[in-house]
């Protein structure tokens, strides 16, 4: 019965030839997306630098784009806002994330780990607007009980909340790195009379360091790009200083502010969001490449 049918395959061989090209085309969409992002940003940023000098952009210490006539476009205050928030987030997330990772991989039983890890990961899946709301309506008022001078919009509260949001990234990825350290390493150390803590900190952690570093860099990159939390709870005052109690503006929050109203099409302000977006893109790109580099370059040798 089959032999008869075996002959007719011209359409199917057409498909065979055609499909790889179609799929290649589909696969290229992701490249086109990157290209689209880069071109969009570069193009409009270019227009922006036609109106504002790049030197001013990089060196001026004031960001005041609202006056078309005598605006001031120094990215540093926005960068400082972003860095403040990111730093606070890292200070919260790195120790807690690492401690959670160590607990889960070295101390917790299998059952505990299987129970806790997914719950922890829920934290990473909560929409950021929810965190923004939480920062503004819960964390800020709570912090103001402790620090009365804290302004309603500040760097501290969104920083802490972003930190909480990226805890599971660090915990989960670092835990993967720790778990992949072979047990023989732990046994070797335990057999020398080490306590569990010594095994974890002196043997396992150093052995997994590249995976851990990569997870931290990725999490920090995520913090840099975080938008809604800072837009809701961070304020809109670009400042070049290290004060975390006063209102700030991050690069992302600036883009949101302008997108919400102030962007008259083709004004300098309009183009400025692309210049800021481009700066942001570069920051995160460098971080991502760095994370890939360390996880590849310093891959553990065991």
């Amino acid at each position, binding site marked *: 019965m089959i032999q008869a049918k075996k002959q007719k395959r011209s359409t199917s061989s057409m498909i065979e030839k055609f499909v790889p090209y179609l799929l290649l085309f589909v696969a290229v969409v992701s490249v086109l997306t990157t290209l689209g992002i880069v071109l969009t940003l570069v193009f409009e940023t270019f227009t922006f630098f036609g109106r504002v000098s790049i030197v001013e952009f990089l060196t001026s210490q004031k960001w005041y784009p609202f006056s078309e006539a005598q605006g001031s476009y120094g990215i540093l205050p926005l960068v400082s806002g972003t860095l403040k928030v990111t730093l606070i987030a890292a200070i919260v997330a790195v120790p807690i994330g690492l401690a959670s990772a160590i607990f889960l991989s070295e101390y917790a039983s299998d059952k505990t780990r299987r129970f806790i890890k997914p719950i922890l990961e829920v934290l990473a899946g909560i929409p950021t607007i929810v965190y923004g709301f939480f920062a503004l309506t819960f964390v800020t008022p709570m912090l103001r009980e402790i620090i009365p001078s804290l302004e309603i919009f500040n760097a501290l509260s969104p920083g802490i909340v972003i930190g909480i949001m990226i805890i599971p990234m660090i915990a989960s990825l670092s835990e993967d790195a720790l778990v992949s350290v072979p047990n023989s*390493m732990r*046994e070797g150390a335990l057999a*020398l*009379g080490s306590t569990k803590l010594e095994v974890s900190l002196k043997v396992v952690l150093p*052995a997994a360091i590249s995976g851990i570093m990569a997870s931290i860099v990725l999490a920090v990159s995520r913090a840099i790009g975080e938008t809604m939390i800072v837009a809701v709870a961070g304020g809109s005052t670009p400042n070049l200083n290290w004060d975390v109690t006063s209102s700030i503006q991050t690069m992302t929050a600036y883009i949101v502010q302008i997108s919400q109203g102030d962007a008259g099409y083709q004004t300098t302000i309009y183009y400025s969001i692309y210049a800021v977006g481009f700066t942001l893109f570069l920051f995160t790109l460098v971080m991502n490449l760095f994370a890939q580099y360390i996880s590849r370059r310093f891959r553990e*040798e*065991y």
Partner: protein
Amino acid sequence: MVQGKNSQNETVNKNIVYKTDQLNLWYGENHALKNINLDIYENEVTAIIGPSGCGKSTYIKTLNRMIELVPIVRTSGEISYRGRNIFDKSYGVEELRTKVGMVFQKPNPFPKSIYENVAYGPKIHGIRDKKILDQIVEESLKGAAIWDEVKDRLHQNAYGLSGGQQQRLCIARCLAIEPDVILMDEPTSALDPISTLKVEELVQELKKEFSIIIVTHNMQQAARISDKTAFFLNGEVIEYADTDKIFSMPSDKRTEDYITGRFG
């Protein structure tokens, strides 16, 4: 100074290091060690042989309580080390393990420098003095017969060493905490013949100072280097005696079958 029950040898004057008494061990439902009685003597090499899965590794890991890393393990019976029951609540595993070193089947150096590998033990035990550490590292590496090969690259990563060198490094790491007993679980099975020979020589050397218990698959090796041999089968000790006796006139048919390669 007590005559071991299973031991049919004549050396009555030696000190007993480990005394195993009615030891049973289960992995969950799996009864892996059954009624083990075994006395291990000081400054001897005791070999443990037997087919795969007979419980050799399980037994040797019980001696320094590494077996407790497997959560489903239960034991009954007693093992006393130097007269003290190691299962005693008051006996800290860390304390036991500083006296009982262990070398594993696959070399498992830490991903650190050679120096740091050896200095790891002394450091965690509180030795900070750089000079003393240097000295310990040197002595230990010499003790493990690897000093000459690595003395010029102490601060390079241990993973640059060959498998045989790594295994001797692990022995050096073990010597650095100045243990009393050294447990070795098939320490040469991952090594080439020449490295194996070196490790075997080393074991002969070490027994002057330490008591050594070695698990091996290799009958010839057991015959070559051990003073006593215990033959395990299905979680039981079938025969335990002087190595010469075991290999020349085993008293149990199964021992003989195993030694002559009829199974295993």
